[in-house]
């Protein structure tokens, strides 16, 4: 019994030790375009009654990115544009072609700011750590003005996003995103996608200033594709 406790204590101590030589994930990567997260999940997410009603009535003409608003921290990883991953000291950063946006991941052990809920934003606030060979990114502080995908899955400001990124071969990263949001979903759910190395010797990250010539907004018409959706709560 005592030995078991000692082992547990040792494991706990080990878990706190940062990975000394984290794997090098840096580079330019092409992500896997996923306009509907339910396709990756294999079913609709585990909605609350409220979340299901929002999905049933969503009008895709109101997609925030159609108005050039930022896509949020996870949708940008499922949009069909490449990104650069940088690792420098206590910071991991993502530089995205899509909308010329960036995400900074603080790796120095700091917590999220205590007042982050008062200063929420589209892309949220991210802190990270290494769990062995896996980069784990924890993000909160997202407002509810972004959607999770083009299909129209939405979320509340209580969204808590956990991303796990690891190298599965020299030219592939695996990205698993877990969505927790008690307003929209009864339990956490996850999708996994693969990023493929982008050959920037032959190609390059290109400009994307969304407001440059966004003529589409004048032509959007109401579009509610899910009005026949029937909510069936998931059984435990």
């Amino acid at each position, binding site marked *: 019994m005592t030995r078991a406790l000692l082992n547990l204590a040792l494991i706990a101590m080990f878990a706190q030790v940062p990975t000394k030589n984290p794997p090098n994930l840096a580079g330019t990567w092409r992500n896997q375009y996923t306009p509907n997260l339910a396709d990756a999940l294999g079913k609709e997410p585990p909605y609350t009654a409220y979340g299901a009603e929002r999905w049933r009535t969503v*009008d895709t003409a109101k997609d925030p*990115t159609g108005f050039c608003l930022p*896509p949020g921290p996870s949708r940008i990883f499922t949009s069909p*544009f490449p990104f650069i991953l940088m690792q420098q000291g206590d910071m991991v950063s993502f530089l995205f072609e899509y909308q010329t946006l960036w995400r900074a991941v603080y790796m120095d052990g700091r917590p999220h700011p205590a007042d982050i809920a008062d200063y929420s934003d589209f892309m949220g606030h991210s802190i990270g750590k290494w769990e062995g060979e896996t980069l784990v990114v924890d993000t909160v502080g997202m407002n509810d003005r972004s959607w999770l995908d*083009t299909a129209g899955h939405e979320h509340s400001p209580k969204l808590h996003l956990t991303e796990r990124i690891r190298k599965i071969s020299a030219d592939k990263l695996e990205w698993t995103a877990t969505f927790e949001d008690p307003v929209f979903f009864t339990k956490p759910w996850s999708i996994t996608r693969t990023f493929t190395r982008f050959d920037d010797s032959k*190609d390059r990250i290109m400009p*994307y200033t969304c407001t440059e010539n*966004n*003529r589409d907004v004048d032509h959007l*018409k109401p579009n509610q594709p899910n009005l026949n959706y029937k909510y069936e709560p998931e059984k435990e």
Partner: protein
Amino acid sequence: MFRKLQCVVALLLGASVLSIPAAAHHSFAAQYDRSKAITLKGTVTKLEWMNPHIYFYIDVKEGAHVVNWSIEGGAPSMLYRNGWRTDSLKVGDQVTVDGWLAKDGSNLANMRTVTLTDGKTVFGASSGGDTR
């Protein structure tokens, strides 16, 4: 025979473009009607190689009148990776555009493919990969 072959190649290229997702910017079905396919033949009057999607304009003869149509494509970076360049379409080029009509009834279409008079098909990279 050769022309027929060119047409078949153009169609195959067009079909392959359908599998290339391009937009992500917003829902295709909020702007275009997938059930309303259209073919437009006309002369290029202007190209806007700009984000979030390129637009170009063609004069189309409709009876005794000439109507200027707006044609929307994919994002410039997406088109670049699919082989387009800023000079792929030039003012004065005669083109045939296959695409889908806008839902709002305006003279606007989303391109699936653009075919030049020499039969060369320019990649569409439309936003039709997402039909919701």
